[in-house]
């Protein structure tokens, strides 16, 4: 009746937020008076199991079968479901990444278990796990909890929980398990993978610099012959004004829905109700007015800086620091100042 945590991997490396899941898992396990186990599947699983031990797992289930190298739901869910049926953990926990959400939901359905996603706070009372989670696109919070004695499947939001301190040399009991499906029984075949190059994942980023529709006011002249000068100016602003600031801070580039819908930057960068929900340490909103849909995606940022030429923009009501002015003058000055002060 332990707590079982998914250590997500990609290309044989652990996805770093998995250690946050072990941190949350340890906390829940301690409160339930039990221990925390982990499971790692695919390439390099045994080596990653050692790291899981250092981050607090007392037991690790390992399966390094080749069918599990690329994440595919069928073999992953079949194996997790068999582990859950055999060991009946009280809680199965993962970070709510694409893989984490899909895998835990599938296994919850297979075992007719309860499932709660996107936890931002966790508490335990007796046998009940009490979960605080955002609903209505971040406009409200709700309290949810397990009913009955079965396994609860739980995903946590990235950056909401801290990893345990790494204890170098700590070891765990390693249990090697066999895959449930062999390749001939798996209908999904991976054809190719195209990595997103040079981008920092928004949900993992500690610092985000975001641009809104106003980036199209770029004073730079679009070259003759471009089909849409406004789009060119906006794309140039993201590349040569917003991104350099994000780069000097080691941060990621975000955008408002208005900027994405206008074709200024790809959807992968959208923050807000129909984009990504983020909670970085620092969020710099450049030429973003702060519509309620955008606020829903970034209101939990620790420090918000708003830069906008309109002093009445709603974004200033939620910002810690506000700068009224032209982003095309302020941001280059800010980038230069950070370079100087951070010694870059």
């Amino acid at each position, binding site marked *: 009746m332990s707590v079982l945590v998914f250590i997500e991997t990609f290309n044989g490396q652990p996805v770093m937020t998995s250690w946050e899941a072990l941190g949350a898992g340890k906390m829940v396990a301690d409160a339930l008076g039990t221990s925390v186990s982990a499971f790692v599947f695919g390439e390099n699983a045994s080596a990653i199991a050692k790291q899981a031990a250092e981050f607090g797992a007392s037991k690790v289930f390992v399966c390094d079968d080749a069918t599990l190298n690329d994440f595919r739901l069928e073999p992953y869910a079949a194996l997790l479901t068999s582990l859950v049926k055999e060991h009946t953990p009280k809680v199965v926990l993962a970070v709510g990444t694409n893989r984490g959400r*899909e895998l835990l939901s599938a296994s919850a359905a297979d075992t007719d278990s309860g499932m709660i*996603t996107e936890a931002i706070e966790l508490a335990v009372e007796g046998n009940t796990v009490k979960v605080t989670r955002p609903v209505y696109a*971040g406009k409200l919070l709700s309290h949810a909890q397990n009913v009955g004695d079965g396994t609860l499947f739980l995903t946590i939001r990235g950056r909401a929980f801290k990893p345990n301190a790494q204890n170098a040399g700590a070891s765990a009991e390693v249990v090697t398990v066999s895959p449930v499906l062999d390749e001939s029984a798996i209908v999904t075949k991976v054809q190719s993978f195209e990595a*997103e190059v040079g981008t920092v994942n928004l949900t993992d980023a500690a610092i985000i610099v975001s641009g809104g529709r106003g980036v199209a006011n770029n004073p730079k002249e679009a070259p003759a012959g471009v089909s849409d000068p406004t789009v060119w100016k906006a794309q140039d602003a993201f590349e040569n004004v917003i991104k350099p600031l994000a780069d000097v801070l080691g941060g990621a580039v975000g955008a408002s829905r208005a900027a994405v819908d206008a074709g200024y930057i790809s959807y992968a960068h959208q923050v807000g109700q129909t984009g990504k929900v983020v909670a970085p340490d*620092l969020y710099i909103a450049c030429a973003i007015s702060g519509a309620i849909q955008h606020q829903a995606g970034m209101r939990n940022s620790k420090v918000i800086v708003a830069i906008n030429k309109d002093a009445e923009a709603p974004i200033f009501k939620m910002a810690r620091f*506000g700068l009224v002015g032209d982003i095309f003058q302020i941001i280059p000055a800010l980038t230069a100042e950070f370079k100087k002060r951070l010694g870059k």
Partner: protein
Amino acid sequence: MHVVTFTRSTPDTAAKVEVGKDGAVGWGDAATVVNPWDEYSLEETILQAENASGKSTVIAIGGEMHNDALKHSLAMGIENAIRIDDPNLDSTDSLAYATAAAGAIKKLGDVDLVIFGKESVDVGTDQHAYMTARKLGWTMLSYVSKIVAIDYANKTITVEKMYEQGKQTVTSQLPAVITVMKGINEPRYPSFIGIRKASKATIPVWSLGDLGISAPAKKAETVAFMNLPTKEVQVEMITGTPEEQAAQLVEKLLEAKVL
């Protein structure tokens, strides 16, 4: 060839959603809209049904408020709408939702492809889609950004799907459940004729008895809704020339140990 999609009515994206003194969630006079992520799944359903000269059906699970989303779907061009409603069914319980959804797909009988939007903004989750696939025992392909090819004769489907680290192309087997991302298509607006036709449509309501199933025991529940804690943020305006503003801001961020 039959493509089925699921939708629901959710408060307008610009609405202020609040918890009242009685603990109930309300959004004042604001209208409901089709769950914003479902605009893409509705459009994709219409496109895929057209491409294969097949049928399209939209299903909502829950009370009468979801008729609005169904009528919007019909107005966009989906052919048939069904609502599943039963006093013993809580559509916010994903296990119950998935059991009912799978029951409806089985009742329809001839379905090849089920398309969900990425998530529902009200309950804030996507688990019901994956659970539906598992209850059906079908292939599940999530976060699809492009349907590359579907071969109904050989029952294969090839899609591009998104992960945090990039885009994976996979081939799998029909029947399948997929969830689609924003950007997969440009959702159309309902036409005037479509709206008129939809307004006259009567939407059949199926009970759990009609599906020949009963609701599963509840394994997780929402016990309360809360308004967001009011953040006491006092904005500090930084003035001066752009260079002065930049220097002051950096100083303050370093002082506050944000960096």
